[in-house]
């Protein structure tokens, strides 16, 4: 009988509190560090840690960063506009639940 099994299942490492550094975030989202610095300045992203080298971003910050990029590009926002939009979207999610 021909074995049509797909590729064998991979085993990975389960990570409890997966954090990204500034560098990892830049790589994953293909953005310049300056952009992320600005987002942190405007509190659109709020990493743990005191200095940029120590910053720890949560995995959902990656999605948040991409959303920020899209909004800025598609609505021609400046940073303060973006920060306001992100805040209002956060509040809307809290009011009605996600999705």
């Amino acid at each position, binding site marked *: 009988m021909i074995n049509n099994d797909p*590729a064998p299942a991979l085993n990975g490492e389960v990570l409890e509190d*997966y954090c990204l550094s500034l560098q990892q975030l830049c790589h994953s989202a293909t953005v310049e560090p300056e952009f992320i610095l600005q987002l942190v300045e405007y509190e659109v992203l709020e990493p743990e840690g005191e200095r940029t080298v120590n910053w720890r971003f949560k995995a959902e910050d990656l999605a948040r960063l991409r959303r920020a990029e899209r909004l800025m590009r598609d609505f021609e926002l400046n940073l303060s506009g973006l920060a306001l939009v992100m805040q209002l979207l956060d509040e809307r999610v809290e009011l009605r639940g996600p999705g």
Partner: protein
Amino acid sequence: MQYKDYYNTLGVERGASQDDIKKAYRRLARKYHPDVSKEADAEERFKEVGEAYEVLKDPEKRAAYDQLGNQWQTGEQFRPPPDWNTGYEYTGGFSGADAAAHSDFFESLFGVGGRARARGADTGFHAHGQDSHAKILIDLEDAYQGAARSLTLRHPQLDSTGHVAFHKRQLNVNIPKGVYAGQHIRLKGQGEAGAGSGQAGDLYLEIEFNPHSIYRVEGKDVYLELPVTPWEAALGEQVTVPTPEGRVNMKIPPGSTQGKQMRLKDKGIPAKVAGDFYVVLQIVVPPADTDKAREAYENLKQAADFNPRQHLEV
């Protein structure tokens, strides 16, 4: 492929000014942008709107598109004329929009040539591949028992002619017992390929649960709403309750009230520190739809002498 009437998509006339087109786009973007929209088909609509705007806002592309003429309707079978595109050069590349999201129609007219970034194999450039992130959807039962799950990843990749193709990759992943939403599984070497002889990056999969028909999951804790009758709540009762691990017998204590939570310790997700399983009582009022039922209610009314609105003083 199918023709797309971009003017129609933006709701403007063929002779519309650039300003009209910009205004139409902005209005539709606010309505359909997936990050802000409340519409059901927002993502699809926004892609259409974005593509239409990309073509019509650029005078070069708009001229080329207009050259096709106005005799087609959206959806009609279409092929670009053979000498299409001679003499037009597209400068300025594309907007930040994801190049891989264009329709076949757009691709056939405008390709992606303006944006191809050469990644020659013989440049001697070696780099560690980037890490990728994706979500993997699993069922609650998978977290209790472990499972093998597959997911399909799509990477946009430039082929040799500079066109973007979707490279699909199917992966099978072992989901270990005890995982919960928000955790990540790191698969080494399954991220983006490296350049030259650089190593591939890692793939991080975020765990997310499919909504369950009867259970609700919060972190490692699992909740079940359990409908009970008024007499079961008032008098107490032994009941059988489903859990992801199988049926469990429980005692509802007498004098239970609506919303009472009963905890089955460590019966939540079997993580290193296991979560708990909570049964939440929902008292359901049986209808008074037979004479016997009505009589029973009347008797209870007399016997109970109970005013739940007392504190409202009405």
